[in-house]
């Protein structure tokens, strides 16, 4: 039997999700994808973020390599022109033919442009694809005023985009209110009020008659009520229409108002052809949200994998989002159209908050809700709605700002079927399954289930479920650092700062019990260092450090140490290079180049360390802090100084950054890199903070990681000048130092940060917590009190005492035995040691 051929037409979010789902089911089919756009699938939901600095590549859901690695054949930029059902083939515009056994149509939708005279002007645009955004951006360059036609969800998204491009922005809506589908009249009015306060003009009940060329502005819109509006460009975002052309021409059943008719298996009128997403008409309805599209994709994938009972049952269209910075939520029957329903409405015009819940006549079941200006109650209300949980006796208590005791719907009260994340269809049951499978933290659950990695709206709910579940099992959701301190690292940091606690003993007396241990001692020592920056070998701190910090070197498996002098930015003079070689030769050390552009010298005994460092310090070297939870290196490529492609001096910036942050003690090690151009030779996107040069300055990436669990850094800000770059990094690092858990890298810290990247931007760029001045001050103090720990140590006999191998003689550790390999030393293996010791007797 030959391999079954699955052909997918369309590579939008839903088409991609289908492929991903099917690949995940290992069906051994031959899968082919044909996409119209020149690029693989991307995240359309967050399209407008391109205007606030996100790169198109960051929105990508897949790359050509992704498909290649899945064994999926993907063709882009040559759209399908027709389906030949009798031959079971499709033909592209370019004339290529593809055979199929099963065909999946995921052609999506196109923006509806009302049939208005003049709407074909070149300054009238649509808002749907990355290419559309390019046109909008280009047209905005010589525009001052922009109009968005359409006051729905996408229209307002688009208005935000125009506003970000610096245009005086108008929204023109045919209906009497904004977001008429999701909001009732009261909610709609409150939304309008808030949006107008942001400087966006809203015109509702406007029927555009014609668009004409004008003198003062490029265009003029004439409305049916004889009013007019001048503008330089118009973007249509007045709803979507299913792209059903292929189906129509091949005589599949389509709806009266468009859409490929599908049944509950997402099958079209031809049983070998499926349709999913916004091109499909299910139960007389087009589902214009991504979550239902994903469900359809999974239903079809499951059927093709043999699960015949997989069906699509319609989907909940509840939604929560931020439009122009305004929180808006809509659940179920937002308009109270259900017969016999009753409503509770709360409106606060001063705070500009509007909330409404619609319940059954007996007040026991939630039927719908509208939230504008404050979505805090959304998650709770959605759970009541989706799971039919009985409402409290006074349902209004759910939306009225509480005087303290708002009835909380705890995660424990949710049924197993409760959907926590609707983007990825993760139920409470899935979360529990993940925890059963070994996930022990929010971050673990997120990467296992993908929950909260779509729109992120369910972050708070997910956290609640995970923590409740973990604590129910007695897992250590107890966030105590250890048995000696009933606090998190973050809390201890705060206590130390506020109480000016400067020693471990003081900390223990005030906030802990017992004597401490190998968990809390180094953690508190690190906090002390971040706050007060004393030398780590000062007497009160000396017994607190891990051996690496005590001996200012890295212990290796045989008890000897390795030495890594700082080579800022990876730049080193021939003279210094020679010194390293000479020292290594003199002490017989094994030398190796590290991944961070430095040189590691291995095999030093603890009693040799001070002598070796005396020589290194004399030659101008400083400690590299390879032993500390602190800044390691700032890697760099050679940059504009030498490179033909470089646009900024990346080496100079790397050295500046490394010298600024060297010695900063943090919850975990910190790595950084600076690339001199977009080719990114320094691999900055895998670092805790990475910097990539642009024509206009620097792009800053945060919270990347290589290692066991790689994470690409997030683009945080673009085109920064030198000083702003350093200011942001100062704030970022100190905020991390203050708030992270012990041994939590920035990547995990970010994954656990409620509000994620946006929140971090608010804190660091907008100073939403009002702490930026303090963070900068704190960093300035650390930078100002920097000392090379080795320089200080070799000049202090008291500190040197610790480096003696034995306190009572000058013998050396006989357990340290080396053998030669490839011209250098290495530790002897156990059997080699036995042989060597025996032969020496």
């Amino acid at each position: 039997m030959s391999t079954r051929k699955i052909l997918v037409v369309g590579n939008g979010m839903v088409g991609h999700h289908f492929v991903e789902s099917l690949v995940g089911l290992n069906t051994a089919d031959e899968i082919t994808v044909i996409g119209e756009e020149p690029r693989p699938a991307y995240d359309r939901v967050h399209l407008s973020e391109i205007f606030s600095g996100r790169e198109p590549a960051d929105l990508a859901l897949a790359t050509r390599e992704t498909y290649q690695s899945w064994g999926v054949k993907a063709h882009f930029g040559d759209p399908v022109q027709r389906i030949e059902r009798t031959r079971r083939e499709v033909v592209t515009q370019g004339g290529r033919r593809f055979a199929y056994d099963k065909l999946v149509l995921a052609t999506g939708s196109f923006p509806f442009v009302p049939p208005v005279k003049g709407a074909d002007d070149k300054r009238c645009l649509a808002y749907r694809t990355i290419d559309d955004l390019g046109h909008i951006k280009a047209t905005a360059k010589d525009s001052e005023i922009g109009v968005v036609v359409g006051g729905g969800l996408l229209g307002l998204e688009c208005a935000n985009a125009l506003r970000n491009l610096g245009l005086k922005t108008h929204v023109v809506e045919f209906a009497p209110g904004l977001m008429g589908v999701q909001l009732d009249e009261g909610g709609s009015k409150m939304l309008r009020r808030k949006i107008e306060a942001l400087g966006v003009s809203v015109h509702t009940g406007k029927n555009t008659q014609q668009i004409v060329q004008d003198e003062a502005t490029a265009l003029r819109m004439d409305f049916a009520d004889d009013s007019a509006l001048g503008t330089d460009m118009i973007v249509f975002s007045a709803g979507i229409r299913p792209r059903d052309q292929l189906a129509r021409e091949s005589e599949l059943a389509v709806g009266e108002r468009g859409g490929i008719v599908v049944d509950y298996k997402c099958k079209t009128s031809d049983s070998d052809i499926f349709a999913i997403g916004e091109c499909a008409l299910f139960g007389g309805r087009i589902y214009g949200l991504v979550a239902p599209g994903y469900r359809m994709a999974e239903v079809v994938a499951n059927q093709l994998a043999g699960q015949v009972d997989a069906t699509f049952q319609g989907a909940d269209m509840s939604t929560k989002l931020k439009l122009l910075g305004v929180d808006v939520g809509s659940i179920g029957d937002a308009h109270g159209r259900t017969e016999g329903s009753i409503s509770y409405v709360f409106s606060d015009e001063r705070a500009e908050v509007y909330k409404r819940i619609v319940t059954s006549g007996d007040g026991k079941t939630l039927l719908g809700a509208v939230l504008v200006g404050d979505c805090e109650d959304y998650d709770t209300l959605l759970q009541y709605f989706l799971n039919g949980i009985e409402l409290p006796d006074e349902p209004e208590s759910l939306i009225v700002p509480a005087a303290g005791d708002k009835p909380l719907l705890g995660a424990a009260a949710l049924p197993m079927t409760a959907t926590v994340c609707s983007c990825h269809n993760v139920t409470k049951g899935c979360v529990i399954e993940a925890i059963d499978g070994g996930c022990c933290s929010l971050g673990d659950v997120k990467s296992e289930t993908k929950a909260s990695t779509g729109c992120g709206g369910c972050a708070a709910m997910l956290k609640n479920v995970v923590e409740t579940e973990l604590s129910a099992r007695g897992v250590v959701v107890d966030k105590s650092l250890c048995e000696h301190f009933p606090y998190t690292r973050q809390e201890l940091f705060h206590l130390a700062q506020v109480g000016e606690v400067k020693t471990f003993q003081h900390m223990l007396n005030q906030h802990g019990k017992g004597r401490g241990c190998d968990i809390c001692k180094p953690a508190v020592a690190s906090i002390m260092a971040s706050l007060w920056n004393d030398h780590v070998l000062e007497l009160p701190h000396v017994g607190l450090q891990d051996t690496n910090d005590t001996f200012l070197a890295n212990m290796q498996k045989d008890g000897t140490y390795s030495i890594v002098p700082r080579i800022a930015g990876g730049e080193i003079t021939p003279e210094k290079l020679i010194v390293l070689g000479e020292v290594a030769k003199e002490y017989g050390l094994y030398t190796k180049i590290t991944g961070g552009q430095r040189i590691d010298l291995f095999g030093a005994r603890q009693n040799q360390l001070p002598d070796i460092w005396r020589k290194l310090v004399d030659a101008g070297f400083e400690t590299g802090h390879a032993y500390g939870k602190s800044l390691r290196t700032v890697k760099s490529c050679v940059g504009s100084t030498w490179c033909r492609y470089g646009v900024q001096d990346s080496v100079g910036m790397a050295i500046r950054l490394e010298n600024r942050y060297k010695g900063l003690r943090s919850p975990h090690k910190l790595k950084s890199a600076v690339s001199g151009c977009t080719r990114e030779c320094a691999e900055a996107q895998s670092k805790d903070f990475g910097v990539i040069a642009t024509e206009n300055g620097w792009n800053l990436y945060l919270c990347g990681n290589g290692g066991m669990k790689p994470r690409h850094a997030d683009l945080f800000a673009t085109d920064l000048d030198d000083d702003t770059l350093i200011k942001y990094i100062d704030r970022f690092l100190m905020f991390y130092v203050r708030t992270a858990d012990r041994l939590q890298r920035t990547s995990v810290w970010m994954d656990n940060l409620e509000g994620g990247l946006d929140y971090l931007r608010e804190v660091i760029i907008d100073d939403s917590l009002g702490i930026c001045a303090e963070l900068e001050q704190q960093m300035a103090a650390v930078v100002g009190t920097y000392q090379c720990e080795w320089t200080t140590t070799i000049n202090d006999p008291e500190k040197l005492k610790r480096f003696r191998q034995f306190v009572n003689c000058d013998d050396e550790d006989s357990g340290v035995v080396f053998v030669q390999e490839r011209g250098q030393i290495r530790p002897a293996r156990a059997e080699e040691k036995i042989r060597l010791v025996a032969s020496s007797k």
Partner: protein
Amino acid sequence: MTGVKGMEAVKQDEWQVVCTRDDLVANSGVCALVAGEQVAIYYLPDTDRQVYALGNRDPIGKANVMSRGIVGDLGGKLVVASPLYKQHFELETGACLEEEGVFLPRFDAQLDGELVHIKVAG
């Protein structure tokens, strides 16, 4: 250096002066070579016994590093954590908390004025 040197002709089961209090580091460890044996000596000034002595060789990591571990308490027992793989050993008995049946050799130790005495068993 204040270490007491010249420890030769050691008799078995005998208390020996190994070093002085000044050689110790409070709430931490140092290492001494006693009758060819590496002994880790921990100094906890606010406990009754004040000094504790265990073998310096980590039986799990198989290197002579125990004097360089962090000292503390767990569940009321005084412990030292191996700097290699972080297992904890009781200062009083040498027993490993994480792996049953694994012990560090222990030595009697006492502080007599400024002098540190260790008894090496035969």
